């Protein structure tokens, strides 16, 4: 283990660069995936049990947002205006399409009623182009549980980032 104090300027710049490259590569891979899927967040984690038994809490979902003609039965992820957390639910009804903008009604498989109550005040349906982030095309069970832990215990996130940063800066393997 080598301290930071006795490094030459260029070595210090190299160490910092290594750390910055780890972060920026992760970010750019994410953005590359965003571009490919045309979705602002191409991978999401299921946070609630409202889609059981199809998806459990902690499942990792892969989204695709090209080809906007969503059919009934597809599972979509949408954002509600004014709320931060995206919701994963199934399309149960569709209106419009073609020349008029496509509008969707969604419902959680495990919920008794459809989503009209979850939507923003005065909103009775989703506009496909504006509200929906993407359709689910694949999933990995349980892997996303780490992010649930991280979001429920925010200090874990800071601790993990800190440790990762220190490791990269201090190690020269």
């Amino acid at each position: 283990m080598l301290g930071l104090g006795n490094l030459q300027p260029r070595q210090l710049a190299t160490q910092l660069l290594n750390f910055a490259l780890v972060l920026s590569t992760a970010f750019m891979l994410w953005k590359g995936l965003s571009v490919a899927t045309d979705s602002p967040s191409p991978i999401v984690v299921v946070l609630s049990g409202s889609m059981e038994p199809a998806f459990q809490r902690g499942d990792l979902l892969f989204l695709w947002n090209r080809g906007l003609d969503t059919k009934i039965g597809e599972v979509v992820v949408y954002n509600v205006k004014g709320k931060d957390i995206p919701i994963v639910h199934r399309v149960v009804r569709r209106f419009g399409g073609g020349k008029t903008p496509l509008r969707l009604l969604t419902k959680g498989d495990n919920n008794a009623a459809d989503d009209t109550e979850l939507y923003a005040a005065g909103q009775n349906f989703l506009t496909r182009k504006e509200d929906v982030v993407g359709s689910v095309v694949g999933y990995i069970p349980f892997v996303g549980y780490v992010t649930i832990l991280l979001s429920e215990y925010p200090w874990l996130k800071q601790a993990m980032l800190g440790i990762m940063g220190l490791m990269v800066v201090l190690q020269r393997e």
Partner: protein
Amino acid sequence: MSATTKIAVHSLADLKNTSDDALPNYLTSLKFKQNHTQTDIRLALGYTAVAISGALFYIDWKFGWEVTKPYTAPAVIAYFILNTAFSYWIWFVENGVIFEGEGKTGKLRIQTSTKKHMPVYNLTAIFTPTYASGSSSSSKSTTGPQQTLHLRAPFTRWFTADGYFVAKPFQQWLASEIPIIGAADPKNVVEDIGRGNQTQTEAERVLNLGGDSNVLEVLEQLKKGAAAVGGGAGTGSSAGKGGKRRK
């Protein structure tokens, strides 16, 4: 890195990094002027990529996905092109170079490497000696041909058992094996004793120290003669391994 830093002797990375750090220090102390161009180009490539990513992150965070969308694809492509160039530079251009520079005795470029689980320092020195004004005929400095030396030495030669780097044996090793370092630092040149087949190497070493190109020619003549008689003469480039020339 000074002798005060203690390292873990079983960490090959620590052994190599400490040696790699000590080498430029030693050479710059011998008035070799280090050339940082390659490092600077690598840093420029890397930091440009990071800057692109940082800018994208900022506008994405500030204005959101819809505004950022048209810039995202070009930024991602530019980032990965720069990143590829960066990796290419490290693996194929720098290729383990830890020192590149020029001194009074010539130009020098040093690459080092280690093999997994082998506590041996592999060093490749590519150098072009400059002979200062000779003893008699010409007063101009002349440049010799570029030579390449492959050296290997166990780290135990300059690390103590408890993990301290000792500069003296390290410097002696470099000065004795690489002629242009030896010429710049004659005090650290040591001779191996008790090896009968070392004579030819010694002759070349002395010659490089004297720095007289005339002697070089004479020796070449002698070598040709010897080759005609004994058929066993080699070239000067493998002088680092004197032991291999036994017939």
